[in-house]
């Protein structure tokens, strides 16, 4: 095609002064505006940022290591030297809470990433191909929903070792079901759109259509549900650590610290109070942020 066929159309109206430019608002800007107006969600984001900084950089500013024992100072309450007090072995609880937070946040993020990968791929493939494959794949999800997975995870961890990687994989592998359902629903309605026809017409393969066109357009619900998966997975990690199946001492995670605290609370309630409060605060903030994001990104789902 020669280039001179298409001529730029002359402007219909000549104006000397350029018109004031009208700023369009994209879906994302709109959502961002709505989120910013939700004061609790903004506060939650602030709390989360603080917790992350506290756990990641905090240990550099505290003059103790997480495994340094000092039996002479065992199980002291909060003081100027030890802000959160010390545990039964005289280890500084502040630094242990920070280290525990690193582990808990890491597990939360990694396991969520695993569940995100499985859930999005599974749901998108199921929704995109549709038909018999779809009904079979969704039937499998229905069946998996009814299996008591934590029991299987516990058996798995007991029998095959209790490493961090196992924890990521085991938790991620059992928490992708809802994500798969959500993504499938989105893909089912999106795949009828014209831009998918256009992509197909221009020769994009199945893989490209699913991951370059469908998934990015379903990003809103995916983000919302991911934010809500993180606290759930962190809770499950803490639950497993509480039972002694997560990270092993002298390492710490919030679940482990709460478990130690619960055992010692008769005489040393501070050992339960501080890690429990930090864990609860983090989960609370994550849940609040997730709710806020849902209201912002998907006003129809607002409950």
């Amino acid at each position, binding site marked *: 095609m020669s280039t001179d066929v298409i001529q730029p159309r002359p402007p219909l109206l000549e104006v000397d002064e350029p018109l004031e430019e009208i700023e369009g608002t994209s879906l994302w800007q709109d959502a961002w505006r709505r989120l910013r107006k939700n004061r609790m969600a903004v506060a939650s984001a602030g709390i989360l940022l603080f917790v992350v900084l506290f756990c990641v950089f905090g240990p550099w500013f505290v003059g103790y290591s997480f495994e340094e024992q000092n039996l002479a100072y065992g199980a002291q309450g909060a003081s100027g030297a030890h802000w959160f007090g010390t545990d039964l072995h005289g280890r500084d609880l502040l630094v242990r809470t920070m280290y525990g937070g690193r582990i808990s946040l890491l597990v939360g993020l990694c396991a969520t990433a695993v569940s995100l990968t499985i859930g999005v791929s599974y749901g998108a493939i199921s929704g995109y191909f549709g038909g018999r494959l779809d009904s079979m794949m969704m039937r499998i999800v229905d*069946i998996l*929903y*009814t*299996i*008591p*997975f*934590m*029991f*299987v995870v*516990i*058996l*798995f961890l*007991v*029998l*095959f070792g209790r490493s961090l990687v196992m924890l990521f994989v085991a938790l991620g592998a059992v928490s992708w079901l809802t994500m798969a359902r959500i993504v499938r629903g989105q893909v089912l309605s999106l795949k009828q759109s014209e831009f998918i026809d256009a992509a197909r017409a221009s020769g994009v393969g199945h893989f490209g259509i699913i991951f370059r066109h469908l998934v990015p357009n379903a990003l809103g619900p995916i983000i919302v549900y991911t934010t809500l998966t993180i*606290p759930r997975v962190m*809770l499950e990690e*803490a*639950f497993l650590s*509480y*039972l*002694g199946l997560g990270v092993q001492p002298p390492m710490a995670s919030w*679940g482990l610290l*709460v*478990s130690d*605290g*619960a055992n010692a*609370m*008769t005489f040393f*309630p501070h050992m*339960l109070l501080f890690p*429990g409060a930090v*864990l*609860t605060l983090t*989960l*609370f903030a*994550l*849940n*609040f942020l997730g*709710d806020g994001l849902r209201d912002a990104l998907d006003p129809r789902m607002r*409950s």
Partner: protein
Amino acid sequence: MGRFIFRRVLGLFPILLVVFTMSFILMRAAPGGPFDAEKPVPAEVKRNLERQYHMREPWCEARFLPALQEPGLSTEAERQIRAEHAGASRIEQLCTGVFQYGWMLSNYVRGDFGPSYKYKDRSVNEFIRSGLPVTMQLGLVAVCFALLIGLGAGLIAAIKQNEWQDHASMGAALLGISVPNFVLGPVLIFIFSLTLLWLPPARWDGWQYMILPGFTLGSVYAAYIARLTRGGMLEVVRQDYIRTARAKGLSEKLVILRHAMRGGMLPVVSYLGPALAGLFTGSIVIERIFNIPGMGRYFIDAALNRDITLAMAVVVVNAVFLLVANLVVDVVLGLLDPRVRYE
């Protein structure tokens, strides 16, 4: 309706088979046998024990690795033979696994879960007979708490939408979702048992023992139910049939309780099925905190002791309960909602 239930019940068996097979494979694939950890028993005794539990099948040995059948073979010698004939050993193991699978499956079908690996004088059935009623009582108390608190808070929030009662209930619900039950449990024990001395902190001997664990276990579900109730009610109140009910001149109380509740409860009912799965999982940690002799406690002890027959039986029994509960929920959902059609 009858046909629907019949078909669903038939559909339960393949799922149960999947659960059984999954836990069986986990058990077989686990490194180390159940009789390794204890003080070493004579090789001959160990072999006989393993034969009794069908972890060793003479037929498979004779067929694939006859060297193992030599009388008086020591454990060390067996290890050497297996190392030398790794391929044959693997096939022999696979063959034994198939035999054991069939043996255990036929026992499970007859409701016999076999002996416990750890407590050889007690059968798994005895553990389940003593543990299951306790866990079910605990679960029932928790569900009652959850429904009572959750429905109440959700209704108030829906009726007083956007007023302070609404914000207070929903804030409390979000807090309930965020506080892990293993934090809430010890805190409640600390307040009500150790400080106020009102309620016992542990064991399971009567109604006063049920309050703290039941509340701790139920709190999360109360929170979810409150949110679902509020959402469901707000959705229903906009429907035409509610306007009709109001137009007939019914009192607001009757409109809410008799007409709106029925439709508004649907999300709650459909949530109860999956919630039961969480209830069983939660009872593992609750039974540990409050020292309650239920299934969850037996399960975690069995898992830590590598008492795999007991652990496996708990998984399968739980799966049976979950599946039946889900079926009941689906039937109830159909009774409540005329739009649901049984296919």
